[in-house]
């Protein structure tokens, strides 16, 4: 039976996030936490594989306790196991240490034929987790996957489309393989009521730094991170051009048309 691991992250809905203009820090108050949209596509890809070929989906995340919400979303559409890695010691982790923790935790529940992630997150958008998780699992790496076309369990291969700058690659990858998926063909489904109801009370396995087997404390959280963020600041506002003020919107539009005509653009 195919074993599929889906890696998800809870992120603030950045479209609603505001930045403190003075300190440059995030104002998260009242901003809803959602499943990273591309992780929704990863989940969708996993569910479709399960529907076509059978298999078992395990969902995993790292985050505060309330990140369990994104795992419940996974359960509501067909994940049968959910793992939450949550510990103050994981705080301020970059992708190097996060991938280490996820790898160690997931391996406690066996091996995986397919590992599926979103291509990048809405908040950090480094797009590095997939590649670094592939390293932790020793898996074949297929990034920017637009479609997983065929899974051949007997041969241990997967055929997938990969979006590149100049076109699309069709690759045959050996399992275990990790895919980071694009949204292209994977619009996440809405769970049905039964699934949603089941997920509300389904068990979630919570792991901490103490309960993840063989975890090296030097490799987690801030100490285990290769990168730090010494400071953030609001983007500089560009000088800008001219905001037209001809007295009315009609006149402003007329002015723009005049300017464009002068420049030979219309």
């Amino acid at each position, binding site marked *: 039976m195919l074993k599929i691991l889906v890696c998800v992250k809870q992120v603030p809905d950045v479209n609603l996030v505001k*930045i403190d203009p003075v300190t440059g820090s995030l104002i998260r108050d009242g901003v809803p936490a959602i499943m990273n949209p591309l992780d929704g596509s990863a989940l969708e890809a996993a569910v479709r594989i399960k529907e076509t070929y059978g298999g078992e989906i395990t969902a995993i995340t790292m985050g505060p306790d309330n990140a369990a919400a994104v795992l419940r979303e996974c359960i509501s559409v067909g994940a049968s196991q959910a793992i939450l890695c949550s510990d103050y010691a994981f705080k301020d982790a970059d992708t190097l240490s996060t991938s280490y923790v996820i790898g160690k935790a997931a391996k406690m529940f066996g091996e995986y034929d397919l590992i599926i992630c979103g291509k990048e997150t809405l908040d950090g*958008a480094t797009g590095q987790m997939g590649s670094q998780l592939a390293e932790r699992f020793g898996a074949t*790496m297929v990034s920017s996957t637009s479609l997983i076309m065929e899974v051949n369990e007997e041969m241990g291969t997967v055929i997938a489309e990969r979006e590149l700058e100049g076109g699309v690659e*069709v690759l045959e990858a050996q399992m275990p393989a990790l895919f980071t998926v694009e949204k292209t063909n994977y619009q996440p489904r809405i769970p049905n009521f039964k699934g949603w109801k089941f997920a509300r009370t389904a068990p979630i396995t919570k792991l901490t730094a103490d309960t993840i087997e063989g975890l090296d404390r030097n490799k987690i959280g801030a100490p285990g991170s290769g990168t730090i963020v010494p400071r953030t600041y609001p983007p500089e506002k560009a000088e800008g051009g001219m905001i037209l003020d001809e007295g009315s919107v009609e006149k402003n539009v007329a002015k723009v048309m005049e300017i464009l005509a002068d420049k030979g653009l219309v």
Partner: protein
Amino acid sequence: MTKFDYKNMWVYIEHDGTTISTVSLELLCEARKLCDVTGDKLVAVAVDGLPEAELAKIRATGIDQMMVVHGTGYERYNNDAYTNLFTVLCQKYNPSAVFVGGTTNGRDFAPRFAARLNTGCTSDAIEVVYNPESGDIEFIEPAVGGKMMAVITVPVLRPQVGTIRPGTFKYEPVGEKAEIEVIHETVDFDPALIRTKLLKFIPEEDDGAVNLAAEEVVVCLGNGLSGSDKLGKYQELADLLGGKLGCTRPVFDRGILPFKQMIGQSGVVVKPKLLVSFGVSGAINHTAGMKDAGTIIAVNSDPDAAIFGVADYGIVGDMDTVCDMMIEALKARQ
């Protein structure tokens, strides 16, 4: 070894055997400036097989050293061989920094060899600055949808691995050095260990989709767009202007337009003669992909919208109304 024992900055030269990826040349020019400050050598690392004319473009950026890689496993880009190559080379030479163009393939293997080397990797920087106090490179990246800028460093570990967004820096070669050291390295990777096989490559031109990067006029829609029912009028305006529709990430996320029409740092970079922007707030992730347009007209109901900062001419008003007026004016001209 401390971080100060790691010397020299490397730039990975991505190529297909005939042409170098533009971002690699852009990176060489920027890394040259850093090396001038730090005293490091600038090293171009390329798999063998480039024609002389392309090699000349590399030399023109003022490199100190050219590392030519020979061996099996590199004919076609693949994660396995390239991850191994940079792991092996970094372990042998201990560079201070490795810059990789942020192409799909660059971002595919750079984080992996960084993880294998147990070092820090940053992605998609739009600015790199050397901090003489810490001895670290500051990689500056837009975060949270471009609403803030984050400075990222690799404070202890080496090499500092970073991918850089294509189109961020300019190819402005400072000229060839009188002496360039050439090093030949052979790192064989057993082709049997390459775990992906290319079955087919479908070039983009075949699917007839919009190629915004080549358009001379772009009408760009932002999150101010109330819904896909309004798309028709903007399409009409684009048609009248002889251009195509583009959008920002929220519009793509809402499923209104496809990814190929998303303009910005993680989408298409456009340089049309004319860009008319409607309901776009102007986050840097988006503006990074359109700021070099010839003439930018922005329409937004919020007079404080950041988009007015990059626009040549701005109109404060309801986007649908302004669009209707422009359509009317253009029809009247015909």
